């Protein structure tokens, strides 16, 4: 089942296209990694596909009314913002907001979703802590738990593991992997190519606003592409856990 399909999606900043004619889809059971150098248009592609930016072309999610979209996709922006000193549990419970009628309190099902999200991100012991007093990495995990509590078929995340310690990075990607195995789908931008190769079922590589490659990790992560798109000289070692990318130097 296709959860997101985009055709010729173009997002312009002024006249200049930041995302140029992107066509891709995400189906249930996939964990799709979006990779590309800084400024290649990853964030803009994700936000454009969500309909949060004015765009040309078609995106199945952007075409939905806002409230229907909130039931189909959860969005974790790159900027981690928690404005008020609320408890972790209450922040995570905000993910239930699209499912609740105006002014309604959390039902048993909502409580269960919040609880499950806290467990998945290993935040059970943090539930009563004030979210704004946690460390940056802990806040990031709280915000991921918030998107999990929204309980949508598709999760779109923009650099969710940036700033997390190695164990938390792997734990987060394992949660994404599990979500995909359970029949949901994840579309996430990443900078760690080895982790992308290991945990994603498919990679989309972007360069200069265009999708330059789309396919299984071992086909995408090649020395030639890394040189061309990332300007990176790298050693790529195929392992049973996916391709291991060891960057060696920068190509001027």
């Amino acid at each position: 089942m296709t959860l997101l399909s985009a055709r010729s999606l173009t997002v312009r900043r002024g006249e200049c296209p930041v995302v140029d004619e992107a066509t891709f889809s995400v189906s249930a059971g996939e964990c799709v990694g979006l990779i590309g150098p800084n400024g290649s248009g990853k964030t803009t592609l994700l936000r454009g596909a969500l309909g949060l930016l004015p765009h040309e072309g078609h995106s199945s999610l952007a075409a939905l009314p806002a409230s229907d979209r909130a039931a189909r996709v959860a969005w974790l922006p790159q900027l981690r913002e928690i404005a008020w000193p609320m408890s972790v549990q209450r922040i995570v419970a905000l993910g239930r907001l699209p499912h609740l009628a105006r002014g309604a309190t959390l039902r048993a099902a909502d409580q269960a979703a919040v609880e499950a999200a806290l467990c998945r991100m290993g935040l059970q012991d943090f539930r009563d802590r004030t979210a704004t007093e946690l460390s940056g990495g802990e806040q990031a995990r709280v915000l991921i738990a918030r998107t999990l509590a929204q309980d949508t078929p598709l999760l779109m995340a923009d650099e969710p593991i940036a700033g997390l310690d190695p164990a938390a990075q792997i734990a987060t990607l394992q949660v994404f992997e599990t979500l995909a195995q359970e029949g949901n789908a994840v579309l996430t931008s990443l900078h760690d190519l080895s982790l992308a190769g290991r945990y994603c079922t498919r990679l989309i590589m972007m360069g200069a606003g265009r999708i330059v490659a789309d396919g299984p990790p071992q086909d995408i992560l090649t020395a030639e592409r890394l040189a061309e798109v990332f300007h990176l000289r790298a050693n790529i070692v195929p392992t049973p856990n996916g391709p291991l990318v060891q960057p060696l130097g920068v190509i001027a």
Partner: protein
Amino acid sequence: MKLFIALTVLTGVMFIASLLVGYARIPLSAWLSAMFGQGNPLFVTVMQEIRLPRAVLAAMIGASLGLSGAAMQGFLRNPLAEPGLIGVSGSAALGAVIALQTGFAAAFFLALPISALAFAGGAVGLILLLAGPRGSSLTLILAGIAVSAFAAALTSLALNLSPNPYAASEIMFWMMGSVANRAMTHVWLAGPIMVLGWIALGGLGRGLDALTLGEDSAEAMGISLSRLRLQLLLGTAAAVGAATAVAGAVGFVGLVVPHILRRFVHGRPSTLLWASALGGAAMVLAADLVTRLVLPERDLKLGVVMALIGAPLFLHLIYKTRREFA
């Protein structure tokens, strides 16, 4: 729930105290009956035409300022925001000053508040025009600052050009803010507009909760930011514009009350809305009581007392929370 009961009781006590305290000594036994038009006609007049409108207005103005302050802070995600930020109160004051200056205020009983309301409405129109339909909260703040500054400049100009010192001092006193010598007519004029404002602001809770996680997250959760902003602007204009129109400029309520109560609602913006409405009502009723208990013969102004209470309170809060920002 405990907070709700505590704030309701506090507001109720302040309201009753406001009806009990005053220049005329009314025996406690005659008090309740006078309220309902029974007994000594002098007491009835004092209760129904002086103290009741004063107490009702103080409560309504406090609720309007507290509610719009909480809404503004929630929308801008900034504890330093206050309803005056978008220029509505400054513009309403300008409308009132122009009415006083031109003599229009004397044309008929409600000329002054109506002029103030018209200017408040005009300010919102101007801000919407300046900030655009999709503008960010930053353009909203900048537009508000521009409108405030312009209104303040024109108010100064009116003072500058006032024909005689009496006109100038009348304007000065009006601008200090007060709920003394107001009639039930003022309540009937401002009340319905304030209630419309409360309805608009009260409906913001869900959107403000979502905005805790930032504009992008809120929009992805199905909140229309442009609608939320329009509702906030119109609600604030109605509530604060009507409050300023009948009472002049009363500052600090919208800033301090949400700040004090935030801890008690565990930071949740939607709960803070009604808590600040009740808290604001209690605070303005209390400040108005102070004007009557301290120096009753000198006609102390509500806005002055409010600032005298509010500023140290705010300083205390900053002192207490400075560790968080350090």
